[in-house]
């Protein structure tokens, strides 16, 4: 199994587990996870400028109290095997499945690279950096000098 395929497999096993775990279940009828990548993960065509980036598609099915559900993923994986983008195609039938799949799709983390402040067009204010107090900095410098 290639690194990318392994990455994909782990990703969607986790996703299927989350959907299943979130469903209300009876104690006598535990849901089963039947996660199978479709004919292993298939690299899709990517544009010429990003040869090392692969897109991978997979379908997953899982059992819920309301019956079997399907969900599809498209993952973009870079040369190091890191997922840089992930799209979920919601295919749920039961309302609760649609809700879970939608909220999972929205909660997927995205990779950040950041920008230099100078790259931004005019901003009004720089926020979000809780500044360390002068007194704290002085104390820390003093502490370090004693080490």
């Amino acid at each position, binding site marked *: 199994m290639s690194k990318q395929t392994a990455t994909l497999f782990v990703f969607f096993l986790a996703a299927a587990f989350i959907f299943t775990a979130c469903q209300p279940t009876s104690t006598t009828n535990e849901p089963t996870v039947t996660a199978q990548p479709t004919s292993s993960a298939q690299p899709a065509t990517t544009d010429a400028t990003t040869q090392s980036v692969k897109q991978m598609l997979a379908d997953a099915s899982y059992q819920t109290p309301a019956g079997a559900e399907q969900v599809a993923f498209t993952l973009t994986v870079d040369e190091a095997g890191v997922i840089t983008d992930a799209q979920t195609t919601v295919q749920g039938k039961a309302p609760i499945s649609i809700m879970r799949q939608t909220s999972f799709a*929205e*909660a997927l983390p*995205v990779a950040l690279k950041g920008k230099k402040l100078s790259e*931004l067009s005019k901003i009004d204010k720089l*926020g979000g950096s*809780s500044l360390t107090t002068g*007194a*704290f900095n002085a104390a820390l410098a003093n*502490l370090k000098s004693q080490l």
Partner: protein
Amino acid sequence: MTVLTFQALGTEWSIDIDAELQVKALPKLEKLLLTQTTSFEHQFSRFIEGSEVTQWRVAAAGTYSVSAQMVELLSIAEKLRGLTDGYFDPAVGGLLEVIGYDPSYSLIPDEAKIDSWKTPIWTLNTTQQTITVNGPIIFDLGGIAKGYWIDQLSQLLLEQGYSHHLVEGGGDIMATDKEDGSSWKVALAWPGQPDQVMGQVWLKNQGLAASDISQRSWGKWHHLLNIKEKTPTAQFIGCATIAASAAAADQMTSVLALTHSTLWPTAAAQLSAEYMVLNHDQTATTSQRWSGELF
């Protein structure tokens, strides 16, 4: 645009007013903002001896009168304590002191005192304006006081007739709108990297707050603690939140920093807040309706 700056509550403050102020009005306004902020600091800073939050440092168990504003702040704290399942508690002040984050900034943890430290128990009676404590307690209002005060200054500016403004204190913000009705564009600093940004947001009658784990740390400790385990928390690198007020945004950052992610959606709904979290692997997780741009 008129910009006023001053230092208070251990950080830098800047007030942008979208209007040309008369030159003679400036010093008066500046003095008003500074005087009020300094007075708030003297009453509620844990770092100032004789402040209201430290007056039960050696108190016996009992019921004590508190000021109206202390009731207001402790009411906010009490709600947040509930929202965070007890992981936020202003009674953490005493624990912060024994790990070295004390008024003299010793930054030397006292392991024996950490081991024996127990969370003091306090209850608030809002009608009587009293608190009941089970013994010595030091309140730390970090996580609520700055956002609260940013909103107070915004209110003060409205009362003074300056409707179009942005109040910023140490990176947290409350902004109304600009004179032409448009939003304020605010870049979000990348935690720990001053010239790097992780995104930008547009604020209009909204507050913004941020928490940064990389700051204020020494050894294994930093200023955000798990009060139940008596350990530093480090769930992520940093976070930013947006809500209708700076106070609500500030409270949401405490929820994110101190509680498990399963509690976040409920708290966000209660506080009508949106959030983004920068994870250790440099990915961002956002709430469903986060409207800012991420880079």
